[in-house]
C-alpha cells in the first residue's frame, strides 16, 4: 500500500493531539515564525536560513540516530542545497521524523512502511556508503521513475515514499517556497502588475 501525502498528514494531525505531538508542534511553529519574521522584514528573496536552535540539537524521536542520519542525507540528495536552499535548510527529515513519532500507536502501518523503507536502504548499503557513493546509489534506485522499462530495485518504493514527503516538507517551508521558488504572492501591493511582454500578446 502506498500512503498518500494527505493520509500521512491526517495521521499527523490525529497524532498531534498526543502531548508529545503538541510539544513538538508548538516549538516547530515558533521556529517557523521566527523564520518568517525574517521574510517579512527583509527584502531578500533567497538565501539559506540558519537552523533554529532546537532543531540543531534535535534528537530523532522516531528513527534511530543511524536511520535518521541516513534519511537526512537522502533528503539532501533529493533536494540539495545549491544556489538556493535545500532539504537541509528546510529540515525535511526532522519534519518526517516528528510526524511519524507523533503518530504514537495510531498508525502502525505507516510507521512500518517507513521502517521498511529505511531497512531497504540499509540492505542496499546506503547507510555505510560515502556521500559520493550515496548519490550514485540514489540515481540508480530512482532510474525507473524516468524510464519505467527499467527494473525496479527493492529500494524504489523507499525512494518514492521519501521523495513525496520531502517535496511536501520542502515546498511548504520558507526555505522552499521563498528561498528556492521566489514566490511573490501573499504580500501587500499597490497594484497588480500587468504582463508587459509583446510576445505574450501574439500566438
Amino acid at each position, binding site marked *: 500500500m*502506498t500512503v*498518500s*501525502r494527505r493520509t500521512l*498528514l*491526517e495521521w*499527523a*494531525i*490525529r497524532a*498531534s*493531539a498526543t502531548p508529545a505531538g503538541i510539544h513538538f*508542534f*508548538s516549538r*516547530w*511553529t515558533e521556529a*517557523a*515564525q521566527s523564520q*518568517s519574521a525574517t*521574510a517579512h522584514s527583509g527584502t531578500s*528573496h533567497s538565501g539559506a536560513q540558519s537552523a533554529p536552535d532546537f532543531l540543531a540539537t534535535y534528537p530523532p524521536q522516531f528513527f534511530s540516530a543511524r536511520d535518521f542520519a541516513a534519511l537526512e542525507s537522502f533528503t539532501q*540528495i*533529493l*533536494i*540539495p542545497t545549491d544556489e*538556493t536552499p*535545500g532539504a537541509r535548510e528546510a529540515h525535511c527529515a526532522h519534519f518526517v521524523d516528528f510526524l511519524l513519532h507523533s503518530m504514537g500507536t495510531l498508525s502502525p502501518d505507516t510507521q512500518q512502511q517507513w521502517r521498511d523503507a529505511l531497512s531497504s536502504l540499509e540492505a542496499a548499503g546506503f547507510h555505510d556508503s560515502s556521500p559520493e557513493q550515496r548519490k550514485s546509489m540514489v540515481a540508480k534506485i*530512482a532510474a525507473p*521513475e*524516468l524510464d519505467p522499462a527499467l527494473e525496479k530495485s527493492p529500494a524504489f518504493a523507499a525512494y*518514492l515514499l521519501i*521523495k*513525496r514527503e520531502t*517535496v*511536501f516538507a520542502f*515546498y*511548504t*517551508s*520558507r526555505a522552499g*517556497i*521563498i528561498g*528556492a*521558488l*521566489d*514566490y*511573490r*504572492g*501573499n*504580500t*501587500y*501591493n499597490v*497594484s*497588480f*502588475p*500587468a*504582463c508587459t*511582454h509583446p*510576445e*505574450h*500578446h*501574439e*500566438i
Partner: protein
Amino acid sequence: MAVKYDAIVVGSGACGGWAAMELAQAGMKVLMLEAGSPVDQSADFHHTFLYDLKFRGRGEPGFLRRYSGSERNYRIMLDNEENPYTTSPGTVYRWSRSRCLGGRSLHWARASDRMADYEFKAASRDGYGMDWALSYADLKPYYDRVERFIGVSGAAEGFPQFPDGIFLPVMPLNCAETIFTAACKSLNWPTTHRRLAQLTTPLNGRPPCHYCGNCVNGCDVGAMFSTVSTTLRPALKTGNLEVRTDSVAAQVRMNNENRAQGVTYIERFTRRSVDVDARIVILAASTLENTRLLLLSQKEGLANSSGTLGHYMLDQIGGGGVIGFLPKLKGGPSRLDDGKSAGITIPNLVNIDARTARKDFIRGYVINATGGQSEYPLYAASLPGFGSEWKKEVRSRFVAQARVWIAGGEMLARKENFVELDPEVKDHWGIPVLKIHFSHCDNDRALLAHFQQTAEELFRKAGGEAMAMTGPSAPVGFPGAPGSPDAAPSKTTPAARKLTPSGVIHEVGTARMSVSPRDGVLNAFCQTHDIPNLYVFGGNAFPSTGDKHPTLTMMALAARGCDHMLESVKSRTV
C-alpha cells in the same frame, strides 16, 4: 412577551446581509438570526504562509475530518459533526457550507456575472424545463443596484450572452492570462477579465484590494465583498437592525390566518428554544437550508401546495479541465501572479442561437483560465527525478503553471433530483437533517465532454503542455495522487475521456419560481405563492442554473424581493 419585529431575516450570507441592509434602511425593525458565531475581519483574518501554520495548512487535531476548509479558514466554514447531511445510495454530492456571520460571502471566489435572457428564457427556445418568471429587463435595475454598492471589477464588452454591468476598473492580466487571451483571439473566441466583487478603487469607505490573494481565507481589509465588509455596517448604522449570532433557526411558526407568525430558534450553546415574532419572515439561510426550514415547519413542507418543494435541485456542472504549463513562460522571472485570484472568462459559445445550436446537447458553459506562480507547486512531487537539475526544473515550471477550468456548465433541472428530511439522522440540536438525492443525466455528460474538448483546444492553441490525467472527474493533469508516477507531466495533450460530472458549490433550485402557483413555490419576487408574508432569498427560486456564477443573481433577486416587500407593506397587502 417576545418583541415584535417588522421582519426576521434568517441567515447573514450574501442574501441575508443584503435584505437586512435594505429593510433597515427603509426604516423597518429587523432581527437577523445567524446560526454561527460573530466574525471581525480585522481581528480574525491575517496573511499567513503555510510555514506559519502549525500544521502547514492541514488543520488542528481532528479538524481535517470535522471541518471543511483548511487550517487557515476552518473558522469561517462549518463543523461537519454538528451539521451532518445524508445522501441517497448512488448520490455523490459535496454540500459545501459555512456557518458564521457572513456565511460563504466571507470565503467565496467572488466571480460576479449577470445572467442573460437566453438563460432565463431557455425553455421557450429549446423546449426543456421551465422559463424563469422574469426577464433580464426586470432584473437589470437590481443588478445595477447591487453592483454599484458591492463593487465589481470588470470590462464592458457588449457580448449578448454575457451582459455588461456597472464596473470598477479591471485588474490587469498576468502573463499566462495574456497568452490565453491571445490564443482565444486566434481562435476567434470572445474573452474578458473574470468579473470579480473585489475593489480596484475605494468604495463606500472600503479600501481597494492589495493583491495578496488571500480571499478564500477572509479579506483582512474588506476589499472583497462580504456581508461583514459591505452590507452589515450600513445596516447596523441605521439602528434598526439587531443581530443575534449563535441562533439556530429551527422552524417558521404559522398563525391561524395562514400567515407566518415568526421563527423558533435554538440558542447554539444552551440549546434553549426561543420564539420570536415578526410581520414578515425572510429565509436567507442558503438554498438548501432554506428548503430544510420549510420542510421542518409543516408536514409535507410549508408553502408546498404545488408539491414541488425540495424538487428540481440543481448545481452547475463541474469536472474536467486542463492543468499543465505554458512553455513560453518557463524559466521566466518571478512575478506576482496569484495576488488577485482571478483569470479570464470565455463566455458560452454554444446553443446561443441557430448558428451555434448543437445536436448532441442543449444549454452551455463558461470557461475560465489562468496561470503563473502559486503558493505550493502541486506538480513538484510528480515531476520525475531529483537533485539540482530537478530543482531547477521545478523552479522553471513554477512561473509557467497554467490551468483551464469550467466556471459553470448548465445542468438540466429534473424532478428526481430532490432533498427531503432524513427520517433518522438529526443534527447537534436534534433537528432532522437533509437527505440529498442527486444525479446527472446524459445531457450533462455530453455538455461536460464538449467543454473538455474546448478546454483542450484552448490549451493546445496557447502552446500548453498538459499533464497526464488521473481520476474520473479530475482535470487533465491534476495529480490526484501526488507522487504517483502516472501523474507525471506528459507532452501529449490527452484526448477527451469519459468524465464524471460533479457539482461546483453553486447549488440552486428546490423551491423554484413560477408564474402559476401550481408549478412552483415562489413567485418572481421570491415571495411564497402560498403565504404572503414569507419570502425565500437564495438560489431556491432558480428554475434552471444558467451558465453564470449564481450569487449576483441571487442578490439581485433579493433586492427585487425587498422592493416588492416594501411596496406591499406600504399598500398593506402583507
